[in-house]
């Protein structure tokens, strides 16, 4: 202002920070992929090249958190505690839609001092279908086929809309109409990897490493994952859903 500071200017402690990074999740017919880069930034600095943003909650649910890392990690711990209590009380794992609704109530509980996190929950529903739920910081949520959140969400979400929902595409003449939500794993995983490599090129807060969690429904064939160097996370209840993790490098500049 050109008035030479004639009026008082309030200075306050800002309880939030922006730690960069991006997460995304895509649901298939009987699997779900939940991915996030591993770079953590503040401003133009890199705080660390490896800070996980995607966490396994149960054999069938994986949560990606992004925004203000302190709120994100605290929120994940609290969600995991609530899920453990559910297991104590019901002697079984919490279903995905119940976790989603619970996350809403936990977020809205801090409506007037929110967790600065953009959450994406992915996994397998009780009926065996792949599902993705995305949340805003105060708990508004919706089940979708795919969602990107975080620093590069504006770069990735339009790409996903085109590739997963087939938006702004017309089928070739004589070909069958597109049916979103039925892509196989070997098509979805390259879409995820390409989303992140492209975001890394154009967004400074994205890069360093990529972690993709793949949750597969009970009994589903997992041979496609073997070629990708996927590591299985041992299940709490064997013989049910399974969770695999695939890691890739991303550019470090």
């Amino acid at each position, binding site marked *: 202002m050109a008035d030479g500071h004639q009026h008082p200017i309030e200075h306050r402690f800002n309880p939030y920070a922006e730690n960069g990074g991006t997460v995304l999740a895509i649901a298939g017919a009987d699997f779900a992929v939940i991915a996030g880069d591993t770079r953590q930034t503040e401003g133009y600095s890199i705080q660390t090249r490896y800070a996980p943003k995607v966490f396994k909650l149960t054999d069938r649910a994986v949560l990606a958190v992004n925004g203000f890392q302190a709120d994100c990690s605290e929120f994940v*711990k609290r969600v995991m*505690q609530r899920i*453990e*209590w559910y297991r*104590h009380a019901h002697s079984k794992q919490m279903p995905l839609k119940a976790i989603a609704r619970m996350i809403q109530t936990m977020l809205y509980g801090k409506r007037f001092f929110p967790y600065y996190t953009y959450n994406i929950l992915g996994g397998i529903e009780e009926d065996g279908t792949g599902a993705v739920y995305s949340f805003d910081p105060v708990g508004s949520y919706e089940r979708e086929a795919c969602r990107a959140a975080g620093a590069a969400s504006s770069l990735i979400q339009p790409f996903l809309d085109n590739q997963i929902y087939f938006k702004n595409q017309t089928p070739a003449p004589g070909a069958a109409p597109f049916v979103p939500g039925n892509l196989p794993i070997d098509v979805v995983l390259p879409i995820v990897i390409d989303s992140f490599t492209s975001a890394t090129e154009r967004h400074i807060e994205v890069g360093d490493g990529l972690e993709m969690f793949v949750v597969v429904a009970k009994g589903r064939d997992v041979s496609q994952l073997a070629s990708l160097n996927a590591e299985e996370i*041992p*299940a*709490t*209840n*064997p013989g049910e859903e399974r969770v695999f993790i695939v890691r890739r490098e991303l550019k470090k500049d």
Partner: protein
Amino acid sequence: MTREPQTQQQDSHKLTVFRNTYDSDNTVFSPQGRLHQVEYALEAVKQGSAAVGMRSKTHAVLLALKRSSGELASYQQKMFRIDDHVGIAIAGLTSDARVLSNFMRQQAMSSRMTFNRPVPVNRLVSAIADRAQVNTQEYGRRPYGVGLLVIGQDQSGPHLYEFSPAGNSYEYFAMSIGARSQSAKTYLEKNFEAFEACSLEDLVRHGLHALRETLQQDKELTIHNTSIGILGPAGVHEQATAASLGKEGVFRILEGESIQPYLDSMLPKEVPAPVHAPGAAAAPAPAPAGGEPAGEAAPEAAPNPGEEMPGALPTDDDVNMG
């Protein structure tokens, strides 16, 4: 007028008459320096069905006899998972047991949250012991009516603790609590030196033998009335789920069909020969049939040493007692 208070060794159902004046308030000592309310709480533990615990160098196991209030009813749950590395078996008031197990779960979770490591088992057991002691010293409160056997694992290996309503907790190699537990204790005392080097299967077999000692006549251990809790690396019968148990072997409760192989491994019950042999309606030499769980109508010839008076035990349809 005051009567001479009787000592503990009298039949339990006669005791109340003589201890009347000093036993209504928790905060009143008897002239002998005893708190009778606490001692009555210990009686409540003895009313619950038996539970046995033991440990080896690599594993700790709990075994419990589940009671059911009738043919149509389900069997009362005797074991609870507290955390991946801690499990408990209860004897006594099940509602008190739920409250204590809830508290233990809270403690275990908050320890993980605050210190990013599993709660040390001795610290957890001390926490409930301290809580229970409060109830033995505050006016208007009653002691907890449940005893626990706690198994847990830390860097120094597996551990077994007994918790009692008196607010005491001790560590043991092997222990049993609940109805007719003295019979199980006798078995454990005879065999405990072997436990240290036992495999998981042998340890469970010893535990089943000990639990069998607490059975009433004509009863036997079945997949319906027996619970087994295991802590430690996966055993021979658990190979299908070995990956999910992890290297340490998280606490798991086995019930139903999955305990059949363990029951099958039990040895036939040995019946000691009667003192006067000829003409006595004595039991024959150890039963020939291989691998059958106990239940032969033999006990009348050889009463178990150290047996408590059976008088005051509840019937099985007491739904509050587990």
